[in-house]
C-alpha cells in the first residue's frame, strides 16, 4: 500500500526493507528485579510468561506509541499502523458509541463532551465531492457528526485568527532581532503550520533549520488549547473528559496532534485526541451507504460568546493554506515601514508553486516573502538557506504541491478528472468563502481575558511551541548496494 503521508514525510523514512534485528530500534524500558541467573521465559498461547521467580508472571506486551515513533530516527511508515489504531475512523466511531477513549499514555477516560473542529479545506473537499455548496456541506457535516454523537461542532476561525496574529507578532520580533544581530538565525521565518515540513526538518536538517521555523502553533493546536483549556472551563468539565477531534486536509496532522509537545502533564491529556480527514469521512459515509446530502442538516455551534461572528468556514487572503505570507506581509509593511494598503503581486518563480512578493520603499527592496509549496520547492529553499543565498524574510512553506487545499487526505479526483482541475475548483471555492481578518473583537477579548494580554508569558506558553532535532543513527546493517 502506498503511504498516505505527504512526500516530505515519506522521504524521511529510511527504508522499509527492515533487516531482522531492526524491526523497531526504539529501546523499551522493562521493569525487572535482579536475579542471579537470567530470566526464564515460557511462551504460552496467550502471551509470554516470566517463570524465573517460581510462579508464572505474565510479561507485559511492549507497545510502541506514535509518540515513540516521532521521537525516533528509525522508520516512520511503520508508524502508520500505530496511527491507524489511535486516530482512525473506527476509533472515532467507538468513542462515539462507548463515550470512552484510551489516550496515548494508555489511560482510559470517560468522555463527557465530544468536540469536532472543522478546518475549511477538507470541508470544501467534501462539498466538491458531494456537489454541495460550502454552506450546505457545513450544515450537513455538522448534522452528520451530531447524529453520530458529537456534542459540539465548531469552525476554526478563531484558532486561525490567533495563529495569524501571533505569527505577525513573531515576525516583527524576529525582524527586529535580526536587525540587532545580523548573524542570528531569525530570518527567514518559516511557516510552522505544515506538520509534514516540520517533521521533515526535524528528522533531516535538525538544528540547522529549526531556528528559522516559526514557534507559533498551527491553528489545529491552538484550537486544541482553546477547547481543552478555555472551552472545558466554560462547559465546566475537566479537560480529560473532552474528546477533541479535528477535521483536517492531511494525514500528517495526525502526527502533529500526537506530539509530546501537545500533551499537557498538568491537564493530563492531549490538545487534540483524534484527527479525521476528508478521505476518511468519505469512507465513513460510504460504509453507511450514504452521501453527505443524506445526512441531517445541522448547524455549527457558537462556543465562544456573544462577540463571536456568525459561525462558518472563512477564507483568507493570499493562499488556500491559511494566508500566512499575505497577512504577515501586510502587517509588517504597515508596522515596519508605515505602508498601509499594500497591493500584493506575487511573481511565479521556477514553477507556479514557488511564488514571491516584495515591498519596495524609496526604490529599495525592504521585504521579500515567498510561498513555497511541494517538496521540490522545500528542497530548493533549504539548499538556498544552506548556501546562505536565501533572499527571503518570510516563507510560507507547505509540503503539498498547491498547499493545503491539495492536502494528502483530501478526496481524490474522480476518474476522468485531473488533480489540477480539482485543485483549481477548490481554490475558486475557497476564494469565494466569506473573508475573515484576524483582528476580531473575540480575539482581543481572548487575549485580555484568557491569555493575560498580547506578548504575555501565558500567551507565549499557550500559543507557541518548540521543535527538536532527531539524531540520526546510522547502522552498518542498513547498507545495501
Amino acid at each position, binding site marked *: 500500500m*502506498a503511504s498516505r503521508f505527504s*512526500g516530505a514525510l*515519506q*522521504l*524521511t*523514512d*529510511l*527504508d*522499509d*526493507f527492515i533487516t531482522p534485528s531492526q524491526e523497531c530500534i526504539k529501546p523499551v524500558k522493562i521493569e525487572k528485579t535482579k536475579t542471579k541467573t537470567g530470566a526464564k521465559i515460557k511462551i504460552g498461547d496467550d502471551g509470554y510468561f516470566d517463570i524465573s521467580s517460581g510462579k508464572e508472571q505474565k510479561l507485559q506486551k511492549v507497545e510502541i506509541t506514535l509518540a515513540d515513533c516521532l521521537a525516533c530516527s528509525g522508520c516512520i511508515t511503520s508508524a502508520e499502523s500505530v496511527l491507524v489504531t489511535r486516530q482512525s475512523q473506527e476509533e472515532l466511531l467507538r468513542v462515539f458509541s462507548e463515550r470512552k477513549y484510551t489516550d496515548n499514555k494508555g489511560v482510559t477516560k470517560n468522555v463527557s463532551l465530544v468536540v469536532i473542529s472543522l478546518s475549511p479545506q477538507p470541508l470544501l473537499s467534501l462539498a466538491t465531492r458531494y456537489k454541495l455548496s460550502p454552506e450546505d456541506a457545513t450544515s450537513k457535516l455538522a448534522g452528520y457528526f451530531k447524529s453520530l454523537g458529537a456534542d459540539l461542532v465548531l469552525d476554526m476561525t478563531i484558532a486561525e485568527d490567533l495563529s495569524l496574529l501571533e505569527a505577525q507578532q513573531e515576525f516583527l520580533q524576529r525582524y527586529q532581532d535580526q536587525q540587532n544581530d545580523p548573524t542570528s538565525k531569525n530570518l527567514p521565518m518559516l511557516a510552522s503550520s505544515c506538520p509534514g515540513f516540520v517533521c521533515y526538518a526535524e528528522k*533531516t536538517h535538525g538544528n540547522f533549520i529549526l531556528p528559522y521555523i516559526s514557534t507559533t502553533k498551527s491553528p489545529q493546536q491552538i484550537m486544541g488549547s482553546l477547547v481543552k483549556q478555555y472551552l472545558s472551563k466554560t462547559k465546566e468539565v475537566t479537560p480529560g473528559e473532552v474528546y477533541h477531534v479535528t477535521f483536517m486536509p492531511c494525514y500528517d496532522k495526525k502526527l502533529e496532534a500526537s506530539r509530546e509537545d501537545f500533551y499537557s502533564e498538568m491537564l493530563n491529556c492531549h490538545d487534540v485526541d483524534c484527527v479525521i480527514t476528508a478521505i476518511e469521512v468519505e469512507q465513513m459515509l460510504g460504509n453507511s451507504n450514504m452521501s453527505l446530502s443524506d445526512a441531517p442538516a445541522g448547524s455549527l455551534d457558537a462556543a465562544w460568546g456573544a462577540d463571536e461572528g456568525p459561525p462558518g468556514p472563512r477564507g483568507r487572503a493570499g493562499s488556500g493554506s491559511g494566508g500566512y505570507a499575505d497577512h504577515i506581509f501586510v502587517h509588517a509593511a504597515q508596522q515596519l515601514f508605515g505602508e498601509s494598503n499594500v497591493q500584493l503581486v506575487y511573481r511565479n518563480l*521556477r*514553477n*507556479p*508553486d514557488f511564488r514571491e512578493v516584495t515591498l519596495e520603499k524609496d526604490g529599495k527592496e525592504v521585504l521579500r516573502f515567498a510561498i513555497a509549496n*511541494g*517538496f*521540490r*520547492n522545500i*528542497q*530548493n529553499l*533549504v*539548499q538556498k538557506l*544552506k548556501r546562505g543565498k536565501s533572499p527571503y524574510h518570510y516563507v510560507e512553506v507547505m509540503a503539498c*504541491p498547491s498547499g493545503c487545499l491539495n492536502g494528502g487526505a483530501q478526496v481524490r479526483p474522480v476518474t476522468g478528472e485531473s488533480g*489540477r482541475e480539482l485543485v483549481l475548483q477548490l481554490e475558486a471555492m475557497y476564494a469565494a468563502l466569506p473573508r475573515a481578518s484576524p483582528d476580531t473583537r473575540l480575539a482581543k477579548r481572548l487575549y485580555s481575558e484568557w491569555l493575560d494580554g498580547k506578548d504575555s508569558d501565558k500567551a507565549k506558553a499557550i500559543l507557541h511551541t518548540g521543535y527538536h532535532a532527531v539524531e540520526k543513527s546510522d547502522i552498518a546493517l*542498513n*547498507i*545495501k*548496494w
Partner: protein
Amino acid sequence: MARLELVQSLNGHKGIVWNVSWHPQGKIFASCGEDKTIKLWSNEGQEWIIKTVLVDGHQRTIREVAWSPCGNFLASASFDATTAIWDKKSGQFECNATLEGHENEVKSVAWSSSGQLLATCGRDKSVWVWEVAGEDEYECESVLNAHNQDVKKVAWHPTSDVLASASYDNTVKMYKEDPADNDWTCIATLQSHESTVWSLAFDKTGERLATCSDDRTVKIWKEYKPDNQEGVIVTGRESTWKCVCTLSGFHTRCIYDIAWCHKTGLLATACGDDIIRIFKESEDSDPNAPTFELICTKLDAHSQDVNCVTWNPIGNQELLSCSDNGEIKIWKLME
C-alpha cells in the same frame, strides 16, 4: 561466433569498482568505486593510463559516474547522499557543485540528452530531477516517490526528456514533465520482472528499452504510442510499454548491468556469474516479438561479479567492464 578480446586489464582502484563511464568522444573514461576516488583514464600510445585522480569529493563509496553530453561535466553519485558535479573550467577537474537532498545513499546519476537535466535516485526510494539553472547552479525540479523500494538506476531517453528508473520493487517506471505545473509525473510502470531490476538501457531510437534483473532475465520493452498500428490498447495520452521479448536461460546469476550500443545495436550484459554476454538481434526479427541471439559468452571475464558494462559511444566495438575484484577491463568485440 564472435569473441571478446582483452585489450587491457587496468588496476588502479582499491576494492570494488562500481562503475565506468565513457566520455562522449570515447577517448577518455571515468571509473569509481569503494575507495571513494574517481579516476580518469586515457589512451597514451598503446596503453590506457590514469590521467587524473579526483579525491575528496565524497565521504563514502562512489556508486556511479556520468559524463554530460557535451563532455565538460562529470557527475558522481555517492553513498554519502550527495551527487557531485565536476568540471575543468579552472584548468583541472574540480567539484564546483553538489546536489544535496537525498536522505541517504545515491545509487545512480544520469544526464538528459540536452544536458540541461540530471536525474538521481537512491535508497530513499525517490527519483530526483534537477535542472541546470546557471553556472554551478542546480535546482530541484521534482522529487518522485513512485517506487516503493530502493531505486537502483536512472536512464534518460536518448532524444527526449523522458526518464526511466529501475527498482528493488521489481518495476521500471517512466516519467515526464507536466507542462501545466512544471512538475514531473510517472507516465508508465513496466511490470514483468520477478525480482530487483538492476539496470536499464534505451536503444538508439528510444522506442525500445532493455532491462536486466536479479530474476536472471533480460527483457526488451517496446513503446506503443496512442495511435499505434498494431492495435495495442493504450489508455490515456501516454504510450504503453509492452514486454516483447524475454531472454531467459542464458544467465545463471543476477544480472547487474546492461548496455545497448547506439551504433551497432549490440546488447552486452554484466552478470554475477562473472560472465559478460553479447546479444545480437536476429536479421529476421519481428518488431513486435523480436528475437536476439547470444553471439558471445566471455567466461571468467572477471574473477568476481561483473558490476558494469558499457560500449564505447563511437561504435568501435570497444567494451568496458569493471568488477568487485578491483579490476577494469577493456575489450574489443571481434565478429
